[in-house]
């Protein structure tokens, strides 16, 4: 496939690995070992495990798998709310397939569907809108989740619903934003990260400037990267170059897709529809101020929150889950005592085991439980 295969060439990948080893041998980098680089995005985590990139890296470079998988950070109480919505007989709940297996305190959406709730998976929010057109006598709720990458799609779909006057379409919104979570991690005293590989597809929407504070105030390099193996390896070369030269900048490896200022049309749709909430809750990380969005009052008629009598309250997460330490890069997935035993992709205990972009699921799928 064009724009994919040429960035997957395994021979080139091996050569890049050797190139990285030569770089790491330079005295300026020798003294900095280990260099800890966090890939923020779950898509990157998936590529790293799928192609075994860690095996190509020389000693002295450690990859830390960050929190950028929206399914993994979904708090159980939001799943509980979805169950409450789906149990109303006149509701059809629609969402992305990835959200189906996330455990809530009363089980997952998949289990609720097996019990008879009308829950349908869609590929696009536009498909959810089509379900609403096709079922005018039902309330069709789209459970909207994701970082900035999926926000514009939700926003444009809602604008379309308004334009067409589709009154039985509702959004249950759990969109979250990337910058506050990065800031929370950077402020965590236990976090030890020397540089970041920035999320390519979030950046295609928001551009590069939102990360400037990481380079300027926290003095860490950021390289926004594409999702193929060579993209990630090249971005690690760029990180090492910055460290060697003592620079901290926001650089762009994914120039074929990401522009400095992001996507203006997408940002406009997002600004029209969404407003920041005072605080949002994250699985494994607690509540973070101004880290998520809800619908603006002008769109209140489409807000599924008003179909809920009382939203679920936040509960303590199971004590034996070590997800929060894995999310912060303090623990490798394998070091969690539940990994591959009480917690598997078929029966996830923690959210990082749910989506193929979660560090635990990616590790389990491609490296096995051993």
């Amino acid at each position, binding site marked *: 496939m064009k724009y994919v295969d040429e960035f997957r060439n395994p021979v080139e990948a091996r050569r890049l690995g050797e190139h990285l080893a030569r770089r790491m041998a330079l005295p300026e980098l020798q003294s900095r070992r280990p260099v800890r680089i966090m890939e923020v995005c779950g898509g990157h985590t998936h590529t790293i495990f799928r192609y075994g990139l860690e095996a190509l890296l020389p000693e002295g470079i450690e990859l830390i798998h960050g929190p950028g998988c929206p399914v993994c950070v979904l708090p159980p109480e939001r799943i509980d709310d979805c169950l409450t919505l789906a149990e109303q007989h006149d509701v059809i709940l629609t969402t992305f397939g990835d959200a189906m297996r996330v455990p809530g305190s009363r089980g997952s959406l998949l289990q609720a569907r097996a019990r008879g709730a009308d829950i349908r998976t869609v590929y696009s929010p536009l498909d959810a809108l089509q379900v609403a057109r096709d079922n005018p006598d039902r309330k069709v709720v789209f459970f909207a989740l994701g970082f900035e990458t999926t926000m514009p799609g939700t926003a444009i779909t809602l604008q379309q619903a308004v334009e067409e006057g589709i009154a039985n379409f509702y959004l249950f919104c759990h969109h979250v934003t990337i910058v506050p979570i990065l800031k929370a991690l950077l402020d965590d005293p236990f976090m030890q990260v020397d540089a970041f590989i920035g999320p390519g597809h979030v950046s295609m929407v928001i551009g590069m400037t939102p990360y400037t504070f990481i380079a300027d105030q926290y003095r860490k390099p950021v390289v926004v990267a594409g999702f193929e193996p060579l993209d990630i390896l090249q971005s690690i070369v760029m990180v090492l170059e910055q460290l060697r030269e003592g620079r901290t900048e926001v650089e762009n490896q994914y120039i074929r*897709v990401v522009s400095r200022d992001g996507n203006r049309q997408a940002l406009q749709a997002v600004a029209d529809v969404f407003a920041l909430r005072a605080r949002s809750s994250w699985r494994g990380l607690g509540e973070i101020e101004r880290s998520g969005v809800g619908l603006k009052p002008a769109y209140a008629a489409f807000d599924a929150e008003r179909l809920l009598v009382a939203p679920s309250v936040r509960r303590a997460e199971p004590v034996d889950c070590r997800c929060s330490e894995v999310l912060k890069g303090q623990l490798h997935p394998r070091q969690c005592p539940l990994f591959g035993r009480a917690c598997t992709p078929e029966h996830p205990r923690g959210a990082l085991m749910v989506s193929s972009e979660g560090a635990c699921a990616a590790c389990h799928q491609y490296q096995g439980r051993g």
Partner: protein
Amino acid sequence: MCLGVPGEIVAIDSAATASAVVEISGVRRRVNLTCVLTDNIRPESLLGQWVLVHTGFAMSLIDAAEAQHTLTLLAELEAFSVDQEAAP
């Protein structure tokens, strides 16, 4: 969910609703073009253009020249010897 894939715009479905058809690895799929349209870019002008597709939306035009440039940089990286650069 967050994975975007490259696809080629092969037909304009409806300019009014900014809807087009892309081909992704031989499979055709409907996408919404709102995010890649501007006053200067009309839907018809995008035929044959490659875009990054994400949950049913074309989110970005893929810049062919930049893709080539990235590959060239990669090739140069491999040719480049660290000793050479480390020399005064």
